[in-house]
C-alpha cells in the first residue's frame, strides 16, 4: 500500500467510512472527525509509519503540519516519512 492509501485507510477507519468514500479534497470536518478523532488519527499515522508528527491541538493552524484537507495531510505525511526515514 502507498502512503496515500495507508493514510486514507486510517482516516476512513476513524470516520467509520469505506476508504473509497474518503475523497482527497474533503476536510476532516466533512468526514465528521472532531478534535479527539484528529488526535487519534495522528497517533495511528505515527504508529503506522514510525514517525513523529509535529502537531499541537492548541495551535493547529500554526503547526508545520497542514490538516486542512485529506490531501494536505497525505502530502505532510509523505514529507515527514521522507525526512525522518533517511
Amino acid at each position, binding site marked *: 500500500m502507498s502512503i496515500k492509501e495507508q493514510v486514507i485507510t486510517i482516516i476512513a477507519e476513524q470516520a467509520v467510512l469505506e476508504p473509497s468514500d474518503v475523497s482527497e479534497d474533503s476536510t476532516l470536518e466533512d468526514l465528521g472527525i472532531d*478534535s*479527539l478523532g484528529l*488526535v487519534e488519527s*495522528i*497517533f495511528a499515522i505515527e504508529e503506522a509509519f514510525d514517525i*513523529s508528527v509535529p502537531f*499541537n*491541538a*492548541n495551535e493547529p493552524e*500554526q503547526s508545520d503540519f497542514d490538516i486542512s484537507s485529506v490531501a494536505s495531510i497525505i502530502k505532510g505525511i509523505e514529507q515527514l516519512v521522507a525526512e525522518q526515514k533517511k
Partner: protein
Amino acid sequence: MTRAMNRVVITGAGTINALGASVPATLEAMREGRCGIGELEFQDVDRLAIKIGGQVKGYDAETRFNRQQLALYDRFTQFTLIAAREALAQSGLVFSGDLAATSGVILGNSGGGMTTLDANYRTVYEDGKNRVHPFVVPKLMNNAAASHVSMEFNLKGPSFTVATACASSNHAMAQAFNMVRSGMSKAMVTGGSESMLCFGGVKAWEGLRVMSKDACRPFSANRNGMVQGEGAAIFVFEDYEHAKARGADILAEVAGFAMSSDASDIVMPSKQGAARAISGALRDAGINADQVGYINAHGTGTAANDKTECAAVADVFGAHADQLMISSTKAMHGHLIGGTGAVELLACIMALRDGVIAPTIGYEEADPECALDVVPNEAREAKVDYVLSNAFAFGGLNAVLALKRA
C-alpha cells in the same frame, strides 16, 4: 436552595509547590510574579517531548520523613502531610474528644500515587522482576493522603478523597465547607494534592497534544498549551463561632460554592456548564455579580479552556466583567490537576487578606477572545471583598468557590 446555617472560615493554610515549601514563600513568589516552571528532572525524561513542569525542586524527603514513613508515603502523600502540618500549626487546633469525633479530612486528588505506579511498573515490565514492595497498594491508592492526615492529626469524622480531575480540590473543599456549614463538623481539614511528574505521567499527557513545550501563557493570544505542576495545599475550614470563641486568626470566609456538569464532552469544556457553576456560586453566597472583585481563573493556557472560561465570565457578569480582575496563577506553579484548586485558593486568600492580586505571568499578546483584565505579568494592589475560584475539569465537571474578606 440550601440556606446557610453556620458561617465557615479558614483558620489555617499550608502548602508545598513549585513556588515554595510554605504559604509565605508561595505568596511572596506570587507577589513577585515568579515562575516556578523549569526543566523536569526524573528518570527517562530524555524520552519525553514535553520536558518542562512546575516540579518541587530541592526537596529531600528523608529530612521530612523517617524510613518507615517513606515506605508508605507516595510523593503526593508526602506533599499533603507537609502542607497539613503547616495548616494545622497555624490554626492552633488540636483534635480530641468530640471535636476529633466529628472532624475529618476531605481531599482532592486525581492520579493517586502515580510515581509509585511508574516505578513499580518499571520494576516488573522493564527490569523483569517478579516481586514488588509489599506496600505498593496502600502507597498508591488515592485516599492514602487523606488517611495519613487523619492518622497524624486524630481526625475521626467524615474523611474521603474526591476525584474529579482538574476540579478535584474545589469539589473536595466544597464538601468540607458543607460539613461545617450544615453543623455536622466544627472543623474540617481539606484541600488537595497531586504528583504526576514522572515518565509515565507526563508521557500520558503528551498523547493528548495539549501540552506546551516552552511555557504556560494563559489568556495570551500566543498560548500553546498547559504545563503540569505538582504539590499540595491544605486548609482548616472551621465554624465561625468556634473560631471566634477561641480567638483564632481568620484568614478568609468561605461564602458559598456551586457545582455543575456539562454533560456534553469528555475533554472539550462548555461555556454553559462553566457559567452555571459561576452563577450558582454567587447565588449560594447570596451576593450580586458586581460584588466580586477578583476571580482566580481555571486558566490552563489551552486554546479551548481560556476562551470558553472568558466567555462564561462575560456571560455571568455582563458589564461588570470589564471591572473585575481575573488571573491564572498556573503560569507560575503549573497545573496541579487534582491539587490545583487548593494551591490557587492561596491566591484568593492573598487577594482578600493582603489586597494583592496575583498576576497572570507569561502574558505576551492580547487575545480578543479573552478580552478581560487578566492582571498581566505584574501583581496589583487592590481591595476586594469577594473572590471566586474556578475549576473546570476534563469530563465536564465544574466547581466554583466564593470567598469573602474576613
